[in-house]
């Protein structure tokens, strides 16, 4: 937990991965380019002293991930968002099954999302049912821009996708996390399209649509859609990292999001291991709007707003009872391992170090 103005801020990192980009897992040139591109994102928005070497970045493993997330209590919980990329990586980049290795070790600390691809047809529907049965997934992470064979991606407002969304609704998989941001092989106009969220969100009001990376580089289209669709949320992965070196830009984006979506529909995410909550949480919590931005947008990143963005909004989506979690974390395995019992001890809740 983080302490701000004497208040505890319970942090749920809404977007993490446990990926494997070791050379032996890469089966297509795209897999290497993808990882290199991620690494540029990492170094571009990470303070120099926090940067990893490329080998660590390829594969960091469960142990390091646990320590990075929870070792200094930067995050209290985290949500896995799998990214399959089967065409690039032999065993997948980070599948539900791969992420489950860690999620199942500390189930009280992780939310494990699954995934679907409507191009898988009947087999895909069965796989979705399997994920629900096996892992009780509360949500899915979707990659609409992923190429497969002759397909250049798919749209959330297509008939095929609607069939899968209906299945999600039927199974109680409520949180639809769509990657709408930097795209994979964007050869055409879909490279800057978030419009399909609009139709899907209004057709499935019982589902929540979380747009990762707040649609960048289509923040404008995203905000306009979200302003009209109450079940559309903005995930801050990538945007939150702009608090490194680009604090003013980060402030502008936060100003726009608060203006168009309001404080209840913005969700913090580090996109670990792109960035590490170990330092990112602190940086985001310390980011401030300039006076000019406060005037322009009429908003502030005060403690109440930050509590929502950093944890309460995610908790709401995934039915997490924060007070119950705080009690549970006084003596769970993570708190024992990192000596955090006092941190969750109930008195004041000062940061662990």
């Amino acid at each position, binding site marked *: 937990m983080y302490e701000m103005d004497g208040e505890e801020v319970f942090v749920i990192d809404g977007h993490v991965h446990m990926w494997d980009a070791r050379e032996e897992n890469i089966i297509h040139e795209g897999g290497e*380019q993808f990882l290199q*591109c991620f690494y540029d994102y990492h170094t*571009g928005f990470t303070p120099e002293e926090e940067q990893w070497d490329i080998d660590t970045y390829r594969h960091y493993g469960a142990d390091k991930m646990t320590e990075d997330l929870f070792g200094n209590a930067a995050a209290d919980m985290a949500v896995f968002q799998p990214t399959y990329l089967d065409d690039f990586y032999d065993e997948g980049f980070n599948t539900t099954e791969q992420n489950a290795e860690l999620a199942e070790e500390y189930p009280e600390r992780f939310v494990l999302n699954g995934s679907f691809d409507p191009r898988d047809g009947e087999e895909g529907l069965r796989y979705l049912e399997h994920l629900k049965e096996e892992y009780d997934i509360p949500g899915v992470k979707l990659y609409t821009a992923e190429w497969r064979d002759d397909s250049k991606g798919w749209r959330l407002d297509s008939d095929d996708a609607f069939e899968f969304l209906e299945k999600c609704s039927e199974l109680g998989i409520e949180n639809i996390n769509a990657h709408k941001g930097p795209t*994979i092989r964007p050869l055409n106009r879909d*490279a800057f399209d978030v419009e399909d969220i609009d139709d899907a969100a209004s057709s499935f009001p019982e589902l929540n649509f979380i747009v990762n990376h707040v649609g960048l580089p289509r*923040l404008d289209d995203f905000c306009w859609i979200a302003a009209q669709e109450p079940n559309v949320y903005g995930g801050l992965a990538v945007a939150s990292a702009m608090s490194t070196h680009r604090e003013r830009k980060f402030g*502008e984006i936060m100003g726009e999001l608060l203006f168009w979506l309001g404080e209840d529909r913005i969700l913090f995410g580090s996109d670990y291991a792109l960035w590490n909550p170990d330092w990112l949480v602190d940086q985001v919590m310390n980011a401030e709007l300039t006076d000019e931005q406060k005037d322009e947008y009429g908003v502030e990143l005060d403690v109440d707003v930050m509590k929502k963005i950093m944890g309460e909004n995610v908790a709401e989506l995934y039915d997490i009872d924060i007070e119950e979690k705080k009690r549970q974390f006084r003596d769970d395995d993570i708190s024992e391992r990192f000596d955090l019992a006092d941190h969750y001890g109930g008195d004041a809740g000062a940061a662990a170090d």
Partner: protein
Amino acid sequence: MSGSSADPTSDAGDGRRSEPADPTGGPQGTAAVRERLDRVEDPELARSIVELDYIDAIDIDGDRVEVRFTLPTAWCSPAFAWMMATDARDEVEALDWVREARIELCDHMHGEEITTGVNARDTFGETFPDADGGVAEVRAAIADKARVSTQRDAIDALLEAGVDPEQIVALERSDVDVAGDEAHVDLGGLSVVVDAAPIADYLDRVETSGHVTSGDDTVFLTPEADPIPADRLDVVQKRSRLASVNMGGQGAVCDALHRARHGPDGPDGSGASYVDRSTSDQSAYDGDVDEFTSTWTLSSDD
């Protein structure tokens, strides 16, 4: 387009081009090429590829010019990369002493295809037969974003000059005349004078996007390109602000990736840059975070 004197695309560069360039590849020739390349924009950011430091090298051999450039990531949209490559080729070939410009896109997932296609004068469709959606559509969408994002400053200039929202939304192209540093706005007999820069910038964009082509076209539009109800002007202004923030946000991402790939000193690591820093000293990132955070604001660029 309206009267030629108000052509917002004319710039100071044209006035200095009378001097014949040195065709042997000396500094004058390089400067002339660079000046042409400065007109090529990264369509996603609406900023010059020279200013963004994408140019790796300019080699001149008599009447042949070779330009090498690198984008912030190997994953930059091939359609955008294609636009920048063809625009660069066409701009350089517009120099009367250049017979052929060859463009090379480096370190890109489709670098070879794009380099080969652009230099062979193929179309995007010939180079990428499986792309559904052509460059023209992408260009149109991008031009539209630039239109929306520049409208706010133009309208703000009028609001500050005391023009009413009702008058602003009713303006037609023939009511606005840009002359030198001033824009004259005719409000039915009464003429208001405002700073030309934001008005000219907007007119350039709205004419490029094709929304204003004749004197009786409405000047200011919603993002959907409809006339603006006066009582909705405030929301339209906020959407315009949002479009600028989006573009600037993407600019920050591209810039960070570019630096991550090449370091702050540019693609060749030598520190030598083709960017003239003299008028934009803010763009030299020296590691001082506080100083740099003020750089990527579109509004501070004029």
